[in-house]
């Protein structure tokens, strides 16, 4: 009697374990795509995230064979530095446990850490990859930063150099007396 109950108990356990293993394997196989950036770095990226990139979708439509992880999908106009940032953003926003407040904090930090050159590169990369959510987030945030601010604040925030020559600057100052002396 005792032996019988033992065996009936372990069997379903075993099968569950096996199935779990199988699941793991299939998940691994199916859910990763190999992406290669312009500086020839390859990334293994979860398919659920990679498929959010318009450029990846487009590539797979043309050559579906690339979904087998042997071949890398080339991203000609995205450097590894930008892809890391993009993945960081999407992994955070894909994370089920992330609450609204976490995401807001993350977004703020994400933006704060970027200087203007990086921001420009990231915008271009997001535009090329056709990652709508990040692109909209960036453009909207930039607009919000500019809103209600003076020129000097905007320059400092984005780390933009004032590339006007002193003569041009003087001409502008005269033309823009409406802005008071605040903007120079």
């Amino acid at each position, binding site marked *: 009697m005792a032996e019988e109950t033992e065996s009936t108990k372990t069997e379903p356990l075993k099968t569950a374990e096996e199935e779990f293993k199988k699941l793991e394997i299939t998940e691994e196989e199916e859910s990763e795509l190999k992406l290669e950036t312009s*500086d020839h770095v390859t990334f293994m990226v979860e398919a659920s995230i990679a498929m959010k990139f318009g450029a990846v979708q487009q590539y797979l439509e043309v050559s579906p064979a690339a979904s087998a992880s042997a071949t890398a999908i080339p991203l000609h106009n995205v450097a590894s530095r930008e892809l890391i940032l993009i993945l960081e953003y999407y992994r955070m926003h894909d994370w089920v446990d992330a609450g609204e407040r976490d995401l807001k904090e993350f977004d703020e930090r994400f933006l704060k850490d970027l200087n203007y050159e990086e921001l420009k590169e990231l915008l271009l990369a997001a535009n090329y990859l056709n990652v709508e959510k990040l692109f909209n987030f960036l453009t909207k945030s930039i607009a919000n930063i500019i809103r209600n601010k003076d020129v000097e604040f905007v320059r400092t925030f984005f780390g933009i150099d004032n590339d006007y020559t002193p003569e041009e600057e003087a001409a502008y100052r005269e033309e823009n007396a*409406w802005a008071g002396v605040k903007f120079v």
Partner: protein
Amino acid sequence: MENSNSAGNYRNDSLLNEILVTIFMSLNVADLAAASLVCKSWNEACRDPSIWHKLDLSRLNSYYFNVPNKLRAWNDEHSNKKMTQFIKYVLSLSDRNTTCIIFNFYIYLRDAQFITAAERTPNLKRLVLPKTGELSNVAVEKAMKSWGGLESITVTSIVRNSNKFSAICKYSKNMTEMKFSCDFVEDHADAMIEYTRNLKVLSVRSIIVSMKALCRVLTFLEHLEAVNICHSMILDTTGGPRSKVVVYRTISDLQKRLAPSCLGKLIFCEDGNCLRCKNACDTIPRRQPYGPFEGIWREDEITSLAH
């Protein structure tokens, strides 16, 4: 190697410019003017024609401007000069691409601002005047001469005087749409019948309208397709100055006076006695703040006249 080459080509300034334009589209004109001073590449993006078709001065609040929500705002000389300079600057960015100007409801409009705007917008199609201001006849004539292609206008009390209104009509042969935000009287109707023969759409909503004027435009402006009389009080003084004024409020009142062909062109408030109908006819606007008045100025049942 090929890959890095194509990357180099792709990362060009024109694409970044395009992205900046997308961002700047969502800014109001004051923030945009500030953005144009940040650096050269931003300045270039700020000059993109697609941003400038409509110059909306009614939304100005920014670091540099804080327009009080009070009529006759900024009627002192200093503020006025500041505003003229600002208009001059933003229109230099627009590079003659502006086809619609909406002035700020509260800011007091003077000749200098008006002419500055007119000289720099030869392709203007639609003009929305502010609630208060003081324009000379000469300034109105001068401005209207340069706005020959004007097709649509929102008229307010600053040009309700018959000389000024006639000048507007005289130079705007292509006018097809008009909205009144002051009262609508016979002088207006006469000027329109004389000059703006192609008028298609007229809005005299939420104001006091002369019955005679309404009858005249409905009879003599052949191309008139729609007249918006929502929430307006229509007064008839045909009986002479001593007799009682007849007030038309609902469409059934109007049926007694107007031909069915005219009635068909009217857009009216179904209720005829709603809160808006009552408010609109409050001839002495004592109430504060002016938000509701700005609302009346902005809204219209005819979408092309709303902003």
